[in-house]
């Protein structure tokens, strides 16, 4: 999930004319401290720690109008990662507070120039921290109100894991917030870990049986095992990418995988199947699955190759988090958390195997691959009960809520947002039913106000580019709608404005101006009929 970078935050804050504060990481403490404010103008900065030791920052403009926006950051790994590890090497655990998304100065300027304060915590622990983060936020809101007694409105927003933290806050403490905006929201932990686990288990089953894919040891040994898995998975992915054209399987493949190779099934079909069964998008930052280079591959590239490359690109991003989140939740739960002992992978891909039949090399190949998955040893979770006891969203919408998510987000799939939409559809129908019954008694019917607005970050028509030799170009910026929480500053400001309006008025601004603003923001869509597939955990 979205990783916050301390260095970026600091540099951006330094660049902001409105934000004069310099952040200092406050060490975790057992008792609440602060807030200690510097009294600066036009924006004063306050910092402190909540009673759980979570450091926080508040930025309060001199013309504070009574509203504060609480931001919850995304997932941060809960172990240090040595420099030699690909992609994420050099990461150090950090609890630096993040009061605005990524320290974005334009977003900060928007709030502060309106007289709206911003605040955010670095949370007491990293990793999957939904329970503790919600508690931290509750305390932070109370702390702010106590310090700034003219506070009248609290709005909350967050990204990725911060999205579900925000949603959970609104579900459990609706009186504390006036409006919320969960963005690229994560699903509940069981659903996210199922997606992660299915993909890792498939990688292990087909391509490298030495991948642990869970059941990590405690302590340093477990860290080493998880980091070893990252290296192995990324190595396999490198080999799969190298073999995309030839169909060659990695030399580390399992005997069953090698048998599939011998049967003429290309490895690209196998990795695509794993992506489909896990629920990874088949469009990625650089692969749209619709474009082909001019010439002989114009049709066959999007038909047979591009979806596999998209899964590889998405998988590389998702696998690291999948491994580290699995390890983290296992530690919290005291046992293994992935369970595919009764998963029917054939049912999982029943529809998608038709859509991607050519890329999967036909029904016979699909049957053979599914046969291997069906016959392979399954994982049985030992700590399911503990995982079930962790905080989770119900989808209940209590306050005006604006959601924004990418339709091809590989980490927190659009289905996580769709689940909330579906739940709210039921809720709203019940509210209307109750209103009708009340009207039968009173003789006056009033349609209940809608409390959920979903905004989708959508992909362009096509975006894969090819060089003169016909090879895909993978150095361009990720297309809108792809990658994780891939929003522009304009997108974020648009949501911020809607959030502020909803918080101020107590209702969603569903009007022409809103739709115009969303449209002008670029790459966003409001379509009540759009429907994203739910995460596979939910049985689709």
């Amino acid at each position: 999930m979205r990783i916050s970078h301390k260095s970026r935050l600091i540099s951006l804050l330094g660049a902001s004319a409105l934000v004069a504060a310099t952040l200092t990481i406050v060490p975790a403490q057992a008792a609440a401290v602060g807030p200690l404010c510097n009294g600066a103008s036009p924006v004063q900065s306050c910092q402190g720690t909540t009673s759980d030791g979570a450091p926080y920052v508040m930025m309060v403009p001199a013309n504070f109008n009574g509203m504060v926006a609480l931001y919850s950051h995304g997932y941060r790994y809960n172990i240090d990662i040595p420099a030699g590890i690909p992609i994420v090497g050099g990461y150090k655990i950090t609890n630096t507070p993040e009061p605005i998304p990524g320290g974005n100065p334009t977003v900060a300027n928007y709030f502060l120039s309106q007289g709206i304060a911003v605040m955010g915590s670095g949370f007491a622990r990293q990793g999957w921290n939904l329970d503790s983060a919600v508690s931290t936020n509750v305390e932070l809101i109370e702390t702010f109100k106590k310090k700034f007694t003219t506070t009248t409105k609290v709005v909350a927003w967050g990204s990725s894991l911060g999205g579900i933290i925000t949603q959970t806050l609104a579900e459990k403490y609706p009186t504390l917030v006036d409006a919320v905006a969960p963005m690229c929201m994560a699903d509940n932990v069981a659903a996210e870990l199922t997606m992660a686990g299915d993909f890792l288990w498939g990688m292990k089953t087909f391509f490298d049986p030495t991948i642990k894919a869970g059941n990590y040891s405690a302590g340093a040994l477990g860290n080493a095992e998880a980091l070893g898995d990252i290296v192995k998975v990324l190595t396999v992915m490198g080999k799969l990418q190298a073999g995309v054209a030839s169909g060659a399987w990695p030399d580390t493949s399992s005997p069953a995988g090698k048998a599939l190779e011998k049967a003429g099934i290309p490895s690209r079909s196998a990795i695509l199947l794993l992506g489909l069964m896990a629920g990874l998008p088949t469009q990625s930052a650089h692969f749209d699955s619709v474009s082909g280079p001019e010439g002989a591959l114009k049709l066959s590239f999007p038909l047979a190759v591009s979806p596999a490359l998209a899964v590889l690109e998405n998988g590389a991003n998702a696998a690291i988090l999948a491994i580290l989140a699995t390890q983290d939740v296992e530690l919290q739960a005291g046992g293994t958390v992935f369970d595919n002992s009764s998963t029917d992978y054939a049912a999982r891909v029943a529809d998608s195997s038709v859509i991607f039949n050519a890329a999967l090399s036909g029904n016979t190949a699909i049957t053979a691959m599914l046969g291997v998955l069906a016959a392979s040893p399954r994982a049985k979770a030992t700590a399911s009960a503990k995982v079930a006891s962790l905080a989770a969203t119900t989808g209940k919408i209590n306050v005006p809520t604006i959601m924004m998510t990418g339709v091809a987000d590989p980490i927190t799939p659009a289905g996580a947002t769709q689940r909330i939409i579906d739940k709210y559809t039921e809720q709203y129908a019940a509210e209307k039913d109750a209103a009708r019954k009340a009207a039968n008694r009173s003789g006056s019917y009033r349609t209940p106000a809608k409390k959920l607005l979903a905004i989708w970050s959508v992909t362009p028509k096509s975006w894969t580019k090819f060089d003169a030799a016909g090879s895909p170009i993978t150095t361009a910026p990720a297309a809108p709608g792809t990658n994780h929480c891939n929003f522009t500053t304009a997108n974020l400001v648009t949501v911020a404005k809607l959030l502020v309006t909803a918080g101020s008025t107590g209702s969603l601004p569903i009007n022409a101006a809103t739709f115009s603003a969303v449209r002008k923001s670029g790459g966003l869509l409001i379509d009540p009929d759009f429907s994203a597939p739910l995460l596979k955990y939910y049985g689709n």
Partner: protein
Amino acid sequence: MKAFNRRKLVTASAMLAVTALTITTVPAQAFSPKSEVGVSANEIKLGITIPMTGAASPGYNKVPAAMKAYFDYVNANGGVNGRKITLVVKDDQYVPTQAVAKTNELILKDRVFALVSPLGTANNKAVAASVNPAKRGVPVLFVNTGFSGFADVKKYPTTYSLLPSYVMEAKIMAEYIKDNFAGKTIGLVYQDDDFGSDALAGFKTAGVKFATTVGYASGSQSATTAAGWVTKLKAANCDVVILFGVSSATAAGLGTAAALKYAPQWILGSVGGDATTIKAAGVPAGVLYNAVGASFLPSTTDTADEYVSLFSGIYAKAVPGSAFDNNVLVGMNSAFVTVQALQAAGKNPTRKSLIAAINSKGSTFASAGLLPLNYSASSHVGYNGYWFGKYSPTGDLKPDGGKYTLYTTDSGSGAVVKSTYKRPAMPAKGLPN
């Protein structure tokens, strides 16, 4: 604000967000209180996704022009309740993910009233899963595929089949083999997806025993892969080979077999005998000569048929120089049935009234088909049978003995029987009332 108004506002604004229009740029239209997306006082807008470019496009890319030719003919004669029909064509290149993208454009940007004759099993399944026309209430009329699943009213409540299913085709083909090639060694080449699996299900129901079966992944057909097919078919000593695939597979299979001097009796599935596609693949249409084929429409060379006569005349004027082939006939017939569905939907048609009209009146629609349409509230099955014939040296399919012998069945375990259906006379001038 009442929920109805808000909903309308949300929907309208969402459309604007996608189309990058502003409210003021929406053309002024005399909407009636019951106006519907894609329907104005003067126009009914329909949309189609189909391969217009790329390897799969030859032949299929004639369908939209054929449909437009008939719609223009209707438009020139007053349209449907005074409204002219327009057809927005999107090129999906026969790639499912493209079909999804293009269908989204048709619904959200072009704001079509209904989708009509979208082509391909995988493409239509992709659209159903990703775009979800059923949830949006968008009618998907007369899909250009014989996949039996699309007749499932519960799963695809707004989708209507037109072609007989591939299961029906395989069962009827089995009957034909029993009658004409009893005791012969049979081989099968099939597309290894839902298209082919439908056929396999039909052959299994009919009890056909194959000496060998060769599946190919969609898109993998080529002279190289076809050489492998021939090797297997030869090794199994097949006297009769069924090729149940698209026409590009027929071109690869029959072209390669001819080059390798392998000449079994070929039996082609109904979608695999298109001479236009075969010629576009660089293979002479003559490879089709004497192969057995099947159709549910009259032969395109049957100029005595009133539909063929009318449609070929209309098409010749609309698209001069373009051959009147089975793609054209299929397209014009789909348009003909579509017009009746629109008429039946009422003076101010809505998507709901269109679906209700097909469910209640669709089985009475006139058409060029030599078998009946089977629409009802519980059935979205189109035609239900075939006749068999052989291809001429120029690639035209003609009925055995110059006479259509029609067989009918279902997509289940029902028997294959000769059809007694008598096609009603064509409405005057081919203009349904």
